[in-house]
């Protein structure tokens, strides 16, 4: 029912269509306009929803957990809320792990996984990541040509995520393609049945892993989930699969997207690339945060208003949907001077790329570590790389992930160091098993120990 009061509440209106290609093409202009004119706006798109674009507004809203719900009530047991995707995909009866839950269950799941994903836990994996990166580059170093998405940025995050879960590393190719393709393939694409088929295969493997690990425990996040008690209950398998899928979805395509965009930018700015390589000890951290801010791989999250409230000067009603745009808030000139410029040494970089509040990205430490190791290795072994703009394929739309499908590059050929990818993955599997690397940091504190195979 529309009333005058309702019209007054929704007077800041903006037609926000983030799933249209135009949103990607005009992103900076749209962000500037919304931040300036309507930092919180009502949009008629996707069934009608609120959009928060301003940095202070997103900050305040995202941290108001008492009025916001992430719940995706797939079985209609509570209030029927639709989770974090706007619009809700057709025919989904699938809850996206604890990112589509509220406390206390959400908190209990995070407590289960935190000791696998804290900075101390993640740093233990750094030698493994270096080995995987080295091997990926080996496969192409002698040819002078590489696709940074297909041959590096898609591979390393996937293999590492599976290792941390306790899934055999060699299964990475069952997982990587469906995760990547399901994000960039439009729903009406003729390729969609193939993607769905691959997704089914992935869930089949995931379900098999859960059963195997339950029967014969081996360390990793799946083991922790299989043994978890959540709010006094043993969770059903479907719920656990949602959590595993969240870890996989969060761990794969986002880091891929960040790495690809950053390498593309560094190719276009060779002087800045040299500076980053030379001054990496002081510049790599701030550059990483700046690439995170500028490219915001996960551009936003949906919420449902769980009680009538007024936040950031806007009145909301229970049940209304809200899009928190991390990507637009990261371009707010009030917080970030020259927001549409990349400044590798930017200070005060309070970006929202990992979200805010109780749902802050639980894998942020993995993302940062893997990104840095990949970029540094490319700078060392392919210092003059040039990305081919004609071959680069960006996602057509950035409603879900701001990613890239392909990023071919050329460089002066170099020499291999040690073994190739398949051999390295097999060797890392032995090391994972022997050293029980996937134990939580509360059990195993030491970093992975890897004898240099290549002397």
């Amino acid at each position, binding site marked *: 029912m529309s009333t005058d009061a309702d019209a007054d509440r929704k007077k800041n209106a903006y037609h926000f269509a983030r799933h249209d290609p135009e949103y990607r093409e005009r992103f900076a202009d749209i962000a500037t306009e919304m931040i300036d004119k309507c930092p919180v706006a009502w949009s008629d798109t996707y069934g009608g929803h609120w959009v928060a674009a301003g940095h202070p507004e997103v900050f305040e809203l995202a941290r108001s957990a008492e009025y916001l719900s992430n719940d995706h009530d797939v079985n209609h047991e509570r209030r029927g809320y639709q989770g974090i995707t706007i619009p809700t995909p057709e025919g989904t009866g699938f809850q996206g792990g604890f990112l589509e839950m509220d406390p206390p269950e959400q908190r209990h799941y995070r407590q289960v996984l935190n*000791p696998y994903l*804290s*900075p101390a836990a993640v740093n233990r994996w750094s030698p493994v990541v270096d080995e995987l990166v080295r091997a990926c580059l080996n496969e192409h170093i002698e040819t002078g040509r590489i696709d940074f998405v297909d041959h590096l940025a898609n591979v390393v995050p996937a293999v590492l995520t599976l290792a941390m879960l306790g899934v055999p590393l060699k299964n990475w190719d069952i997982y990587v393609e469906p995760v990547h393709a399901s994000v960039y393939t439009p729903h009406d694409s003729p390729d969609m049945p193939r993607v769905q088929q691959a997704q089914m295969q992935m869930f089949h493997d995931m379900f098999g892993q859960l059963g195997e690990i339950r029967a014969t425990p081996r360390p990793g996040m799946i083991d922790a989930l299989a043994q978890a008690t959540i709010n006094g209950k043993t969770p059903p398998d479907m719920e656990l699969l949602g959590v595993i899928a969240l870890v996989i979805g969060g761990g794969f395509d986002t880091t891929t997207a960040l790495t690809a965009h950053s390498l593309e930018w560094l190719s276009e700015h060779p002087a800045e690339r040299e500076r980053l390589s030379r001054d990496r000890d002081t510049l790599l951290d701030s550059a990483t945060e700046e690439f995170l801010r500028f490219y915001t791989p996960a551009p936003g999250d949906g919420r449902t208003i769980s009680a009538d409230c007024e936040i950031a000067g806007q009145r909301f009603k229970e049940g209304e949907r809200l899009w928190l745009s991390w990507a637009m808030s990261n371009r707010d000139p009030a917080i970030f001077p020259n927001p549409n410029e990349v400044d590798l040494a930017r200070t005060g970089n309070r970006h929202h790329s990992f979200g805010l509040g109780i749902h*802050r990205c639980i894998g942020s430490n993995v993302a940062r570590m893997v990104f840095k190791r990949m970029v540094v290795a490319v700078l060392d072994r392919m210092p003059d790389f040039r990305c081919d703009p004609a071959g680069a394929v960006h996602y057509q739309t950035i409603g879900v992930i701001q990613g890239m499908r392909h990023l071919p590059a050329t460089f002066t050929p170099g020499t291999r160091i040690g073994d190739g990818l398949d051999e390295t993955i097999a060797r890392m599997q032995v090391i994972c098993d022997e050293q029980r690397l996937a134990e939580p940091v*509360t059990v195993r504190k030491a970093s992975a120990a890897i004898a240099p195979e290549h002397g």
Partner: protein
Amino acid sequence: MKVHVDAERCQGHTLCAMIAPDVFQLDEVDGHSTAIIDGDVPADLEAKVAEAVRSCPEQAISTSG
């Protein structure tokens, strides 16, 4: 200058420890931050603490004195 991390607000973004590792330490299990300097921050670290305050996404760090 004294520095304090509000444990309720901190969500473990870890920027403070990246910027000023001599001032902030991260919990081994959840990565949440605490200030390791109880008394006054040494003068040569004040600028870094100020940068950590500015950079905290949750605005969980405060200084006094």
